């Protein structure tokens, strides 16, 4: 990647000096979203902005077009674009910069395309409305871009409405929409985050091709270091609206100087190393799922003939992309969706298909932790009520005993005792997820189903949660069924893995075995799609895929 890095003599496209953005409400000034951030961007260069949620990266991206969301205001600094300070332009001049010279590519194409207009109308709009081309020329340009972006049937693609094409295609169409007026600067705001991993690879590749061939400068905003490694020449790390570190991509990824960056990199490296948790076959059988099938009201089976087993102390990861049926499997297991065929045996006895036919003790022994800690905890209850309820419900304990047990559980999940009177609204995302864990533990279960428990959390917080789960497993011997789409998590925590595709199990076994040749083709596709921090990863994957085709 170093060979096509811009020389310092190249023309400067964007210079941001001491940018400051604040929230202002009727009640007075709010938090500072961006504080004293500066950077420059030259022609043909890609700068990656990286950080956790609340780092201010999207705010900076939008501010580069002198746009802020409602309630936010740019209160300081300069935004110099091609020698003009955009903040000093009047609204018409700003308007004539947006879309024409600086274009934006948003996270969700499905939401950012107007459902009432065809793709052509929206792609050509910028060029036509700003008087750069007539509609026929713009259409020709659009078709050219559709072809470059490898969209199917490029000649007629634009005649369709946004809801008529797939998410990955729409995301690429948004890139075409941004490029049609040949802007000098592109702003990518988490453009692949909403996509499945296998789709992400292709979209990422077409974005990179587009930027390189047109020599456009770009700001690439993402939370994923491995993604930014494929596309950026330089990287800026942000935290709480402040710059942590800015440097060459290779330097940031291989020799980070700041502690925070080091942590981020270390976390990502740990996720992509190939050291597996060794499978231990000594535990006695706990759960046996035997040729289970189920469907919702339609006749199509959402889960079809799935067989897998979990031993005591196991961590079995169930992986797959959206729509693979992995969450549905959990719903069948707990009885929310009754199975139609097959059997589920837990500790030797067959579990009734329906939730309401199960005994209190059967319910107690399988607990669940959810993806979104915000909606998994009743906002009106205190932690005492939330964690204490399973204690009093399953074990008929008195008020004092419940309080004592809750205190003990709080200690186990590393939360201070004083939190017992707090409500979920007063906790951070990671703390809420710990409370969810405590609530599950309060039932003293033998199996805990973890449904995407880390995917709503920032990477460093997620790692702490994973470590906590591991520690609790060592202490209590509880088994986990770990539903996730993130293969990095799987490698780190699971000793067995089940790969699901369209409601069926395509592979199941000890993690080292499933994730090593000979692969099931889908496992290989999935595995190869997980971005790695090596800069040449994307090229490798693409080369490998071309061979396969």
């Amino acid at each position, binding site marked *: 990647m170093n060979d096509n890095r811009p020389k310092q003599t190249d023309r400067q496209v964007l210079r941001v000096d001491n940018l400051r953005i604040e929230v202002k409400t009727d009640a007075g000034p709010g938090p500072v979203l961006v504080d004293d951030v500066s950077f420059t961007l030259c022609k043909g260069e890609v700068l990656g902005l990286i950080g956790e949620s609340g780092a201010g990266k999207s705010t900076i991206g*939008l501010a580069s*077009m002198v*746009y802020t*969301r409602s309630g936010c205001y740019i209160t300081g600094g300069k935004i110099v674009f091609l020698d003009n300070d955009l903040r000093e332009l009047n609204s018409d001049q*700003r*308007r*004539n*910069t*947006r*879309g*024409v010279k600086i*274009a*934006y590519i*948003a996270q*969700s194409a499905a*939401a*950012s*395309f*107007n*459902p*009432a*207009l065809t793709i052509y109308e929206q792609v050509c*709009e*910028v060029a036509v*409305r*700003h008087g750069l081309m007539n509609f026929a020329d713009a259409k020709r340009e659009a078709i050219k871009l559709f072809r470059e972006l490898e969209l199917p049937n490029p000649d007629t693609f634009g005649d*369709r*409405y946004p*809801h*008529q094409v797939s998410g990955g295609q729409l995301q690429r169409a948004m890139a075409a*929409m941004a490029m049609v007026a040949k802007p000098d600067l592109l702003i990518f705001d988490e453009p692949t985050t909403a996509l499945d991993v296998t789709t992400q690879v292709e979209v990422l590749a077409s974005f990179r091709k587009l930027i390189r061939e047109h020599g456009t400068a770009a700001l690439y905003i993402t939370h994923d270091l491995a993604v930014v490694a494929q596309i950026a020449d330089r990287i800026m790390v942000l935290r709480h609206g402040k710059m942590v570190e800015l440097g060459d991509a290779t330097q940031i990824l291989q020799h980070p100087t700041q502690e925070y960056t080091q942590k981020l990199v270390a976390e990502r490296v740990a996720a992509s190393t190939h050291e597996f948790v060794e499978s231990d076959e000594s535990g006695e059988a706990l759960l046996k799922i035997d040729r289970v099938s189920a469907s919702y009201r339609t006749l199509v089976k959402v889960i079809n003939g799935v067989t897998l087993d979990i031993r005591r102390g196991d961590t079995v990861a169930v992986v797959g992309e959206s729509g693979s049926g992995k969450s549905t499997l959990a719903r069948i297991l707990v009885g929310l969706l009754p199975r139609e065929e097959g059997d589920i045996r837990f500790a030797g006895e067959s579990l009734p298909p329906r939730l309401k036919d199960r005994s209190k003790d059967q319910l107690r022994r399988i607990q669940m932790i959810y993806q979104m800690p915000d909606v998994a905890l009743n906002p009106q209850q205190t932690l005492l009520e939330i964690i204490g309820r399973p204690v009093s419900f399953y074990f008929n304990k008195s008020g004092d005993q419940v309080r004592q047990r809750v205190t003990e559980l709080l200690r186990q999940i590393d939360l201070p005792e004083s939190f017992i009177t707090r409500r979920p609204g007063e906790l951070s995302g990671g703390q809420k997820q710990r409370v969810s864990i405590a609530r599950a533990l309060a039932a003293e279960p033998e199996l805990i189903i973890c449904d995407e428990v880390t995917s709503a959390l920032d990477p460093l917080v997620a790692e702490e949660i994973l470590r906590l789960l591991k520690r609790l497993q060592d202490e209590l011997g509880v088994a986990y069924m770990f539903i996730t789409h993130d293969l990095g998590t799987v490698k780190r925590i699971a000793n067995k893995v089940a790969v699901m595709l369209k409601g069926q199990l395509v592979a199941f076994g000890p993690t080292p075995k499933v994730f090593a040749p000979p692969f099931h083709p889908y496992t290989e596709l999935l595995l190869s799609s997980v971005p790695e921090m090596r800069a040449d990863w994307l090229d490798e994957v693409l080369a490998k895929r071309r061979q396969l085709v």
Partner: protein
Amino acid sequence: MFKLISQRVALGLLTLLLASALIFLGVEALPGDLASKLLANNATPENLAALRLELGLDRPMLVRYWEWLSHMLQGDFGASLSNKRAIIGDLGPRALNTFFLAGYAAVIAVPLAVALGIIAAIRQGGIFDRLVNVVTLFSISVPEFFIGYVLVMLLAVKIRLFPVLSNVTPDTDFMQRLYLTFLPMATMVMVVVAHMMRMTRASVLAVMASPYIEMAILKGLPKWRIVVQHALPNALAPILNVVALNLAYLIVGVVVVEVVFVYPGMGQWIVDSVSKKDLPVVQACGMIFAAVFITLNILADVLAIISNPRLRHPR
């Protein structure tokens, strides 16, 4: 889409049928029968039996319902109990008066409310928006008859611009009608505009908050084009819905206004007939009101279906 629309229309017709059954049964379900209720104190066995025969109460209920419904479909609403005249004769001119008044109000109110609603939404939080908010809160809080009387006080008593009562006859010419019905029209406009405007503003605001509007801003499009090309096509369905619902409200709200201005329409008639217990008239007027109300509701849904791009251009 055609399937959805025909389903909706069929459901509407079913609702209408059920409404007719309710209106018919409501009267049938009287404790004691209609005849004894009507005669009250002068009920002797003989004249009770005579009246029952006259009303056809000796035959099964379902047969009578069918007769009532099929006659009504042919324009025969039966005879009034109070003056023994055929209802259809009085219903025609009265229905015309009512629809004239409601239509008059709608022609003024709809464009006004939609325009004001869109302006308030675009200038959200501005002085105009705040002013509009206060005014609409006030007019929603105030009963129709209060607005009516205030208008009478101001425009008919203090300044003698308009008549206190809206006396129209079948011979009144069109311009004269517009003048005579100005105050009742204005009353209805004031009530309905507030509602319609609030709802229009809310639907436009909901659309203006979508990511594709932000995208249009980031494409550097001028504000008017964003509103006209990107927001309105998507806000159209909810706005049409709002309009149709408010028209339905208008046609029913006309009842109170007609009483205030002693306007010879269906509303005043139904109220009169309720106090006189002239049940055939109540049934007839009730059916017409229900039919218009239900039709407008169907129209609202059908328009919403038609203006939804996802339904218009299926995958």
